[in-house]
């Protein structure tokens, strides 16, 4: 009941004209960038970060939450109309969605994805209200060793589960951690990795890293491999659904929600796994399995719901523990750090109004999205016709502006270019980007909690072991690391059995 009261206060905070306008702006911008090629919600939030430093943190978070949810909607529009999913999470939507569109059912595909996203987003946000305070209650009792162990779980999670290659994920994480320790050591005041450059003494700003890796790196990568051909747009009318579409959609929506939320909440779950799972489930349960691969509405409804529910799930570890499980959440955490707010278990106690206003704005943003997107889908499709040179020049323009605005020093612009080239190289060689940014954000925290644990034990390594919680955490780390070896061994024994 207490939480309900807090939530109502949150609604009170959001329902001011200015904050509502920001929520509307957020979902509009979010949908727009979701539709635009090459720009995702993570990049947009990164680009907008420096600009929002003049705002109140609550307002910035309302804006970002709108972009976060809006990007998901916009992404599905492109998957359905063009068969070019921008985010890995909407790959599955494209399979059936684009087939539906080609069969003249674009309107129904868009409608089931929008309504499914709304339902999953709303249920997911309710689950945040229920689950998040419980997680905080558990987390608040954790000491430095336990917290350190949980951060290690996050590190292994993002490197091991997400990328196709653990080695490459691990390399990205190490580079991120290295970036995070540049600057003056917080305890002893010693300079590390600054090469005597005074501008580096304060460390490399997370914003510059995020903008460099996500915006500049992506723009350079796309620029080097620009597609020189236009895709066909499938004309859309007003999204709508017939009675049979509703009948076939509502169960996949709910099942997708159930699958998506927990995967979003665990580190490295991401939206890819639940969307694929949802697709396979719907295919198995469908009364029209023959339609799959030719445009089955269940194959759009389920994965889209799973996608949005997992986005909601992401916010649980982000708000309760300060752990990012996807790129957008990582950058929202960076934003909080930029305001001098320390994300972590104490966030809810220290900044209850911020957290609850953020959650309330998710409910509102989600509703705005449905109202906004059902009638506007044809208008959004027009955005696809912006000439590429202007689009990517615009990204570089905003990236430079944002990076300069952080500290008002041209040095950051050179740093931005260097980081952009790093982001380019990572995309070229297939290094995942998320471990790097997570490393930058959590690196200092990991070092601090690690050093605090050792301080308690007087330098003895046993200090890192802590209590049962960290034992479980280390167990998970070991399991995740050893799993592929185990799986390999299992396959081998099975094979030899089969051979025998």
């Amino acid at each position, binding site marked *: 009941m207490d939480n309900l009261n807090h939530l109502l206060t949150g609604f009170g905070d959001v329902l001011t004209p200015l904050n509502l306008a920001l929520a509307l702006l957020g979902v509009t911008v979010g949908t727009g960038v979701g539709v635009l090629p090459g720009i995702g919600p993570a990049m947009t939030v990164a680009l907008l970060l420096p600009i929002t430093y003049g705002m109140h943190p609550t307002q910035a978070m309302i804006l970002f939450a709108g972009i976060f949810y809006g990007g998901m909607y916009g992404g599905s529009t492109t998957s359905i109309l063009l068969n070019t*999913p921008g985010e890995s999470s909407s790959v599955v939507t494209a399979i059936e969605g684009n087939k539906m569109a080609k069969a003249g059912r674009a309107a129904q595909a868009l409608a089931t994805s929008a309504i499914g996203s709304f339902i999953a987003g709303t249920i997911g946000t309710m689950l945040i209200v229920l689950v998040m305070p419980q997680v905080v209650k558990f987390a608040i009792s954790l000491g430095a060793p336990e917290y350190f162990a949980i951060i290690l779980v996050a590190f292994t999670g993002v490197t091991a589960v997400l990328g196709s290659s653990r080695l490459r994920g691990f390399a990205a994480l190490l*580079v991120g951690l290295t970036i995070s320790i540049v600057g003056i050591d917080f305890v002893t005041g*010693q300079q590390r990795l600054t090469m005597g450059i005074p501008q580096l003494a304060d460390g490399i700003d997370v914003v510059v890293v995020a903008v460099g890796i996500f915006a500049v790196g992506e723009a350079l990568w796309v620029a080097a*491999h620009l597609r020189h051909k236009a895709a066909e747009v499938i004309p859309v009318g007003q999204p709508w659904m017939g009675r049979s579409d509703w009948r076939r959609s509502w169960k996949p929506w709910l099942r997708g929600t159930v699958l998506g939320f927990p995967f979003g909440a665990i580190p490295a779950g991401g939206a890819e796994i639940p969307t694929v799972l949802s697709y396979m489930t719907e295919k198995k349960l469908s009364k029209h399995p023959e339609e799959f691969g030719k445009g089955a509405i269940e194959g759009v409804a389920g994965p889209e719901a799973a996608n949005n529910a997992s986005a909601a799930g992401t916010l649980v570890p982000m708000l309760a523990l300060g752990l990012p499980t996807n790129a957008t959440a990582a950058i929202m955490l960076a934003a909080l750090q930029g305001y001098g707010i320390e994300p972590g278990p104490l966030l809810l106690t220290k900044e209850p109004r911020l957290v609850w206003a953020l959650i309330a704005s998710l409910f509102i943003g989600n509703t705005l999205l449905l109202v906004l997107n059902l009638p506007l889908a044809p208008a959004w499709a027009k955005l696809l016709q912006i000439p590429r*040179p*202007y689009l990517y020049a615009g990204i*570089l323009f905003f990236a430079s502006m944002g990076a300069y605005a952080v500290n008002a020093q041209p040095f950051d612009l050179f740093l931005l270019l260097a980081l952009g080239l790093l982001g380019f190289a990572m995309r070229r060689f297939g290094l995942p980007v998320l471990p790097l940014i997570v490393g930058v954000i959590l690196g200092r925290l990991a070092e601090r909690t690690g050093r605090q644990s050792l*301080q308690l034990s007087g330098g003895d390594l046993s200090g890192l072991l802590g209590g049962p919680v960290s034992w479980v955490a280390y167990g998970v780390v070991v399991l995740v690391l050893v799993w592929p070896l185990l799986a390999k061994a299992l396959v081998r024994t099975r094979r030899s059995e089969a051979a025998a």
Partner: protein
Amino acid sequence: MTDHRPSVMTGVRDRAQFGLCTALGLLGVFVLVDASRIGAASSSNDPIGPRPVPILLGVLLVVVAVLYAVDVARGGRGEEEAGEDVDLSTRADWKTIVMLAAAFVLNALLIQPLGWVISGSVLFWGSAFALGNRHHLRGLAIGIALSLATFYAFAIGLGVNLPAGILQGIL
């Protein structure tokens, strides 16, 4: 472990990957050298001091660089990132990258003396040109409009740090 396919193909695909391994290794060595420079400043308050973390990172970087090189030598290859607007069948267009970087550096050099409105316009126009825009006047017009709009909205409206430069007093 990694996505190396059965080694039907003898030898290494995509040799440039060794360059990345070298870079990782060098970064590791640099971190180690830098860590050795740090004075041992541990105290009872902070028993391990500022050195162990960089040392650990440096060692891990070198180890990962070696493992990575082994993986590449055995035919491993990172998957290039695909995207809506990315055509991986073409070779990387280095000319565009160099021109974009040049526009970027120009902006960094000009932003303080000339101000954001001028340097930003140049940046936009230059990047659009690098990316194949041939409507020069339109590109410049959009650039100027964007820089003016951002300057008024963010620098004057929201108090974001953007320099007025030589246009100080006119804007």
